[in-house]
């Protein structure tokens, strides 16, 4: 019975856990409760991945009303894979939060923090799993409103302006999505994605359809920080509390990319998106500009969080490049990089949060000489950086490898060169951090530093070890990604 309701429970459990969490008077209990819920969500995501692994598609009709009249949830290999990414990061960040927010967020706000985190988690999961275009908008706004709140919790006053900027950009994005969905609705009379997909081919050539396509691409482009719409991202990630940067940095843009892919492949169909609209010729230059520009900017950052944020813009560029190659290998690379980037950026932000916990700052200069004092934290940071660069035995290598294969398959060798150059830039910007930590002296008079507490180290290392595990034993993630890519191309998700 539980199994049959699994798709609904995946979202409803964290969604309803939020108001319960808000009612719990004790801070520690609210943390324990939220952590438990995040683990439960992770377990449900694993069960869903197993259930759909053989190609079955799970449907869930809310209120018992059949689509397109009611709202349906639909789980297939592709979105179960995204559910797994989001819940896995959640399961690591929630336990980590307890210690991390002690120093970053005033005690009066701890309960609000966990409530907002649960809402954000639920919203992201709902966006991933829903089969209804308007329901996606509602869940998008749940996750957005809670992430504005979470970002504004940062200590620096610039967290407020970062949150405001994100709110404005995010709401423009959401309103564009609303316009796009409205135009699609005007043309077809339906909001159900599968039903839309079956009606859109007959409309090819409609100018309304083209406008709807443009608004949806722009709307999701804003949410996923596609260059040059990424301006909100560096501030948002830099000034948010560490654990929030880790969670949102690893998951939110991935879910927006998922939604973009869902519309490109499932709703509009690859023949409309790529053969008729030729959207890859828009995405490709933006993707290249994104990873080249952001990698260069990252080199000149003083704040490590800001550096990682620009690196995220670059990684989004790789993912978009994979999508814009329009072949199975490229899409596989993109999907793999969604998973792998969540692991590497999640691990790096978590390690950075542990550093912030001990020294209270995340500027490059301020971590001089902490390599000996915080060996485990810094080792985690080094492995995460290697993964970011794409060194063999880490997950970063796997997705870069697929991406390079995909460019070669297409015969676009200049792209291959650009990917390698951008990876070298990643060596430069991560090396600055590592060099400062290991080879510079701790400034005289600076307070002594201890290793981070275990409650921060364990979640960090779990994510970092996942970087190595999936880098060495890559068949699990590559199989999932290539199955999902094949399905998207085959269009057999319907």
């Amino acid at each position, binding site marked *: 019975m539980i199994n049959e309701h699994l798709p609904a429970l995946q979202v409803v459990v964290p969604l309803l856990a939020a108001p319960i969490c808000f009612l719990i008077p004790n801070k520690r209990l609210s943390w324990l409760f939220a952590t438990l819920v995040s683990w439960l969500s992770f377990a449900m995501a694993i069960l869903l991945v197993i259930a759909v692994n053989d190609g079955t598609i799970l449907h869930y009709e809310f209120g018992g009303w059949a689509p397109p009249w009611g709202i349906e949830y639909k789980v297939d290999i592709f979105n179960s894979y995204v559910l797994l990414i989001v819940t896995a990061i959640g399961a690591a960040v929630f336990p980590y939060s307890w210690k991390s927010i002690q120093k970053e967020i005033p005690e009066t706000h701890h309960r609000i923090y966990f409530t907002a985190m649960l809402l954000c988690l639920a919203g992201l999961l709902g966006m991933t799993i829903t089969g209804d275009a308007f329901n996606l908008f509602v869940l998008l706004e749940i996750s957005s409103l809670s992430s*504005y709140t979470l970002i*504004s919790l940062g200590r620096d006053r610039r967290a407020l302006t970062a*949150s*405001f900027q994100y709110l404005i950009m995010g*709401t423009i994005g959401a309103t564009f999505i609303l316009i796009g969905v*409205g135009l699609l*609705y005007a043309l077809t009379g339906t909001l159900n994605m599968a039903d839309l997909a079956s009606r859109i081919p007959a409309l090819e050539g409609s100018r309304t359809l083209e406008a709807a396509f443009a608004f949806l691409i722009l709307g999701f482009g804003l949410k996923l920080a596609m260059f040059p719409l990424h301006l909100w991202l560096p501030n948002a990630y830099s000034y948010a509390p560490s654990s929030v940067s880790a969670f949102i940095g690893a998951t939110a843009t991935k879910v927006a990319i998922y939604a973009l892919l869902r519309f490109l492949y499932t709703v509009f169909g690859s023949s409309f998106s790529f053969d008729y609209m030729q959207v890859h010729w828009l995405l490709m230059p933006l993707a290249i500009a994104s990873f080249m520009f952001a990698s260069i900017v990252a080199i000149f950052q*003083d704040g490590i969080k800001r550096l990682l944020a620009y690196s995220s813009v670059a990684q989004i560029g790789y993912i978009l490049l994979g999508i814009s190659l329009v072949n199975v290998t490229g899409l596989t690379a993109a999907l793999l990089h969604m998973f792998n980037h969540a692991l590497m950026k999640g691990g790096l932000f978590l390690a950075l949060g542990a550093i912030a916990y001990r020294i209270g700052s995340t500027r490059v200069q301020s971590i001089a000489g902490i390599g000996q004092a915080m060996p485990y934290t810094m080792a985690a940071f080094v492995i995460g950086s290697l993964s970011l660069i794409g060194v063999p035995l880490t997950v970063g290598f796997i997705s870069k490898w697929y991406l390079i294969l995909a460019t070669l398959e297409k015969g676009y060798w200049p792209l291959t060169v650009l990917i390698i150059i951008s990876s070298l830039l990643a060596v430069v910007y991560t090396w600055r951090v590592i060099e400062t930590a290991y080879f510079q002296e701790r400034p005289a008079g600076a307070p002594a530093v201890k290793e981070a507490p275990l409650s921060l180290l364990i979640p960090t290392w779990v994510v970092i070890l996942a970087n190595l595990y999936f880098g060495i034993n890559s068949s699990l993630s590559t199989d999932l990604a290539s199955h999902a890519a094949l399905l998207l191309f085959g269009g057999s998700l319907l």
Partner: protein
Amino acid sequence: MMSLDLYNYWVVIFLMMAGFYMLIASNHLIRKIIGLNIFQTSVFMLYISLGKVAGGTAPIAAEGIDTYSNPLPHVLILTAIVVGISTTSLALALVIRIKESYDTVQEDEILELDSIADEEGS
């Protein structure tokens, strides 16, 4: 009638764009939020215009009426209005906090204060 077929849509698009313009061009944060409100409310009008049926009445079943306007856009927009007021209240709360910590709600002055802080920090 032909010229009026799209009249509703075009006026609504003009309103949307006026709000959108105010949102991105204003320097004052509250003006931005008002622009956002106008932008969104105009999108709501677009949806509701879609739902109107010639000769129809409000979608409440009654004796002797057989043409109703489409209830679905109404439902969607009810939800969207609620989402809109939620976003507005959160944005206004942020503006209050920004005023308290920067002592201004003008975007250019905030950016200036931030860049001074950046230079001092490094």
